[in-house]
């Protein structure tokens, strides 16, 4: 009985193996027949990774999806396969893929020092040869410089952001506080709000970068944008008294309890959600949040007034030295099999995600827009914010993108320590300089 069972089992295995071989054989035979009778116009599939998984938390997804719609209609033969992950897990996903040589054909990445490791390792495709068709003229200002390394261009930017303090006018009016125009007035406003038990600023600093909007802006306003760039590029020292004064200004805000008591452990998204509830006075954040700040049906609609971050007296910078800039865009992997199609997609998606982000009120355009596109922008808040930039004298992007990754992480830690009150401004400057040597 046992012997015959074994024999039947072996027979079944043998039969299934033969059947599999036969199936493969037929498929191959059919394939070769089709190839010889048709002209090859194979559809190309490009893989595309970006960092906006859900339109609820990352409004940019809406703009990307609309650009994808336009692309699919215009290019039925070039399919785009999208994959996503958010924030830090996205950075890890891309790094692992780049190291393993399995990057997608196109992906979103930040510029300046964040793309430098990839450029140095030859993982990104240089786009210079493809940009002589007028693309360069369509991009405003020197936004391309972020993606330029050793004179070659490795990516195109879309959307530039600027940071503003978004004030909830209702909260200001209810508590009889006037909207500040100088840093000293801002401190007074913070103290007035705390006296009435209102949280002055929202801040979810678990990921550690939200606090550096404050630290970066305050440093630029005291030291001036040129000294800041020099220090980042190691030509000047972070122990310059201007940086110590800027850190002391941040300490003054922290001591006046400008930030929520759970800022250290609250996630960034939760911090924004707390502001959306409507009882916090101010939100210093970039224009990428405009989609959420102006959303229909929320407690904030129509109540938000954007202002530039008020500067302290006696600094080398003013409120017109804006935190922001084009900090990222879509890049092409150097190992892509379809260079022409991928670069075409790169140009298309950068330009159109830029356009739709502008139209949906998610950000400021960095590609030239025509008058009819301007007319489609329905977000009053975006138009008001854009007006505030009319007198901007400089744009400094977040230092975490401008600095080497190791130094950037130290900056995040030190700024968080300032927020927690566990180091003094002098120590902040000293450790910052040590990390930047």
């Amino acid at each position, binding site marked *: 009985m046992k012997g015959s069972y074994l024999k039947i089992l072996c027979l079944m295995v043998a039969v299934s193996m033969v059947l599999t071989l036969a199936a493969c054989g037929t498929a191959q035979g059919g394939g070769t027949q089709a190839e010889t009778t048709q002209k090859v116009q194979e559809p190309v599939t490009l893989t595309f990774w970006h960092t906006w998984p859900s339109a609820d938390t990352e409004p940019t997804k809406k703009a990307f999806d609309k650009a994808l719609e336009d692309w699919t209609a215009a290019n039925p033969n070039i399919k785009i396969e999208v994959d996503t992950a958010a924030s*830090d897990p996205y950075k890890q996903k891309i*790094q692992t893929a780049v190291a393993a040589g399995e990057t997608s054909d196109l992906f979103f990445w930040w510029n300046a020092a964040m793309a430098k490791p990839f450029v140095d390792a030859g993982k990104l495709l240089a786009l210079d040869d493809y940009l002589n068709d007028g693309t360069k003229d369509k991009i405003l200002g020197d936004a391309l410089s972020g993606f330029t390394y050793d004179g070659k261009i490795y990516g195109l930017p879309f959307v530039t952001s600027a940071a503003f303090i978004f004030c909830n006018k209702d909260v200001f009016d209810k508590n009889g506080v006037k909207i500040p125009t100088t840093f000293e007035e801002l401190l007074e406003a913070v103290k007035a709000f705390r006296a009435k038990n209102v949280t002055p600023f929202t801040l979810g600093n*678990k990921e550690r970068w939200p606090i550096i909007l404050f630290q970066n802006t305050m440093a630029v306003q005291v030291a001036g944008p040129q000294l800041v760039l020099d220090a980042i590029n190691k030509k000047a020292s972070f122990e310059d008294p201007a940086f110590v004064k800027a850190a002391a200004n941040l300490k003054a805000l922290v001591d006046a309890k400008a930030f929520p008591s759970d800022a250290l*452990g609250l*996630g960034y998204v939760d911090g924004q959600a707390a502001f959306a509830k409507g009882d916090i006075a101010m939100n210093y954040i970039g224009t990428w949040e405009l989609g959420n700040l102006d959303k229909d049906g929320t407690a904030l609609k129509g109540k938000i007034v954007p202002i530039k971050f008020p500067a302290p007296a006696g600094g080398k910078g003013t409120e017109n030295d804006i935190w922001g800039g084009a900090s990222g865009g879509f890049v092409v992997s150097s190992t892509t099999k379809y260079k022409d199609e991928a670069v075409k997609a790169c140009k298309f998606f950068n330009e159109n995600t830029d356009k739709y982000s502008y139209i949906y009120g998610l950000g400021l355009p960095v590609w030239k827009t025509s008058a009819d596109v301007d007319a489609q922008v329905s977000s009053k808040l975006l138009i008001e914010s854009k007006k505030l930039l009319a007198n901007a004298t400089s744009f400094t992007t977040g230092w975490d993108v401008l600095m080497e990754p190791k130094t950037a992480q130290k900056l995040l830690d030190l700024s968080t320590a300032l927020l927690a009150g566990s180091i003094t401004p002098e120590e902040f400057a000293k450790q910052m300089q040590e990390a930047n040597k």
Partner: protein
Amino acid sequence: MNRRFSSKTAICIFVLPAFLLYAVIVIFPIFLSGYYSTLEWDGIGKSVFIGLKNYVDLFINNNDGFTKAVMNSFILAGLNVFIQLPIALALALILSRGINGESFFRIAYFIPVIISTVVIGELWIKIYNSDYGLLNTVLTGLGLKMLNHQWLSDTKVALAAVFIPVVWQYVGYHMLLMYAGAKSIPKDIFESARIDGATGIKTAFRITIPLIKPVIRVCVVFAAVGSLKFFDLVYILTNGGPLHATEVPSTLLYSTVFLKYMYGYGSAMAMFIIVECLVMTFIIQGIFKSGD
């Protein structure tokens, strides 16, 4: 037939496929990590051989909190072995005596083990929220408002706040192992104990526990070694923050490799964790053997 199957050649042949898989997926990458730990490398571009400098930076000139992270992992190991395991043992002993609703409780205690760690993390983040979280609301409701804390933002309480869900999650897992062990003890032993007049607690301490000692040993090894390399819940709850108060070696390793682009240094950390886990396993086996 038996002799053929137990000859050394036959054994080698049957073990070979699984062993090859294990060698390629586990053993080989460990040696590769060992090699990477002697390099200064960002994981993507060129690398520079620097010998043991990474280890010197890790242990002697350490400036990124690795020592504190290792201390935290030892605290977690202590909590798991001396709090989580006794709770699991007590539950296992009670359930294995055959109470009402035995299978219901068995499932209920095991559910935290099978729920996705991300879900558990997000759940506890909401429980710990300072404004509307369940914990602070219940404390205030009970009139204990002064016990309200910023659970995940206050460096003084964050470590405790993070370790509680960690200890809670795997109680069911160890309970199930010990329950299975207790259930496999032959019923006659309990009967004769009862005839001799032994009470429940005496039976538990003098009979059940000694007989499931091998299972307990396995649980101690899993709990201790698992704590040394624990990652998931800490990453989700606090990512090592605030201000590195809840940093454990694996979260520090993650940020070193993926945020600071220091692959060689990160590999040195990884090697340390591997060696530390092996040493811990041997120590625990030794303790149990000498207790026999």
